[in-house]
């Protein structure tokens, strides 16, 4: 019998704790495929964020460290400086990277630290119960914007990829989405490229932003969540390669 689809060997055979319809499972798979396909498993160190993906180390069969909220780019900086031959990546949500860790990602990028960042943007704080994130959409209802996000009260959605792409220290910045098969395939190529260029010793930070569904805190069905990314989120967060 011919195997047409199987679990990437870099992922453990484990049930995840993620909600039905969550995008983290897809994102994990893309990361695991990239590491496995490029033969990097033995020299990769992953950094788990604080947020829904904090337990990512239970799913990846690689060395991993769990760090303080938002500080992954500082941790990654030290690891990559000390061990330039290793593949270092941080896996961070939008609360972790764009809110509490905004300074750390900005400065890692401006220094041009050549590690890889997988930035999962689901426009909400998932783990703590669906509060507003810097990336929360205009008018989006969250646990802390019950009447919807308003510019005057809550500020504007933060476009991290565009911001970081302006810095000379970033080598590769691309925004992808997980809302359709075609987009997932594109995301897979981007994630792979973000690891590949680190493995090749290319200059600068590599960052892939993944628009990812959170049906639970968007209060939508998984199918509607996928549609909402396409109809709404991609307007605020246009897909495509911003740099590199």
């Amino acid at each position: 019998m011919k195997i047409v689809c199987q679990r990437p060997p870099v992922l453990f055979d484990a049930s995840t704790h993620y909600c039905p319809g969550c995008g983290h499972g897809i994102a994990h798979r893309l990361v695991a495929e990239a590491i496995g396909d490029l033969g990097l498993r033995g020299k990769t160190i992953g950094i788990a964020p604080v947020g829904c993906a904090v337990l990512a180390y239970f799913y990846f069969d690689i060395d991993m460290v769990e760090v303080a909220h938002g500080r992954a780019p500082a941790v990654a900086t030290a690891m990559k400086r000390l061990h330039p031959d290793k593949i270092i990546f941080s896996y961070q949500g939008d609360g972790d990277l764009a809110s509490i860790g905004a300074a750390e990602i900005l400065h890692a990028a401006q220094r041009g630290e050549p590690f890889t960042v997988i930035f999962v943007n689901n426009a909400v704080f998932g783990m703590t119960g669906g509060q507003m994130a810097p990336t929360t959409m205009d008018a989006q209802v969250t646990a802390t914007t019950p009447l919807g996000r308003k510019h005057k009260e809550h500020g504007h959605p933060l476009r991290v990829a565009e911001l970081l792409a302006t810095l000379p220290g970033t080598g590769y910045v691309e925004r992808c989405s997980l809302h359709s098969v075609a987009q997932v395939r594109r995301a897979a190529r981007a994630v792979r490229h973000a690891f590949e260029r680190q493995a090749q010793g290319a200059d600068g930070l590599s960052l892939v932003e993944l628009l990812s569904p959170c049906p639970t805190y968007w209060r939508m069905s998984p199918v509607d969540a996928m549609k909402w990314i396409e109809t709404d989120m991609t307007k605020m967060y246009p897909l495509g390669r911003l740099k590199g």
Partner: protein
Amino acid sequence: MSDRTLMCGNEAIAEAAIRHGLDAYFGYPITPQNEIAAHMSRRMPEEGRVFLQSESELAAINMVFGAAATGDLAMTTSSSPGVSLMQEGLSYLAGADLPAVIVNVMRGGPGLGNIAPAQGDYFQAVRGGGHGDYRTPTLAPASVQEMADAVPIAFDIAWRYRTPVMIIADGILGQMMEPLVLPEMSGRRRERPLWALTGAEGRQRRIVRSLYLGDGELERVVRERFARYAEIERTEVRAETRGIPDAEVVCVAYGICARIVRAACARARTEGIRAGWIRPITLWPFPADAIRGASGKGRVFLAVEMSMGQMVDDVRLSLLGRAPVRLLGRPGGGIPTEDEVLREIRAASDAARAGKAGEP
């Protein structure tokens, strides 16, 4: 041949760390310890090692965390306000059982305070300024030589027990120059420990973490860590004492205060006052046995510190009411003078002789 040289305390710490085999230094500028980063920025690249000026103390301590997680010798240094920012990282280092050395060259506080020498961060260091149930072994050098000597001791404790270790000094110790003998340059490469993250080539993957969600899991982890702390309390206490056997007044002071107390006690002796002193070199574990052992009948204790009475609590806890304890504390960058300490020793002696030593 070891070389005798003249350096300020900050440079002594930096060079001693390099000679001990430091792999990486991360720091953010703050007075009065900027000489450390300046020294590191020149010397670390010379030795082919990592120096990085971080964007904040938060980043610096997390860079230390990253370096420790890969099994490298890492250090950061700062002064009081910066060390406050590092407390999150200290808690995570403790929670992840990662070894590292953190130096606090203390200045006046709270808040921005001033840049004068102070000891107001005693509680923050020895009680644990970060969240959660943990301890931080803390060394308190009292000379430029001891600034250098503290570094290998701190790294040894950090690596033996897998814990962050603090060295706390003050602006005087950081800035003043004294002759010292530096350690030899060590042959550096160690075996990486079995918990270090190196990439899982040819072995099972490893995890470094501080989150334990399972029922009873965190309690077990913390209890295991406290068993190591108990071992530290048994084996790592360091103190220097003088003039205790016949003392009527027992002074307790650490760091630069101990130098002032030593001089004041010598003068008190010339006046016929039997003054002795105990100098804690480790603040945690605190030399409680040495202090309790000095609590003979009729003796009065005098704690001298550059804070409003922080270490004095540990003196009282060591004595458990066995002897009265007086305090000379100067906050906000005030430095007790020899005369000031001598006056307090006289007053303590008077109280001891009158049998009215005051509240224990």
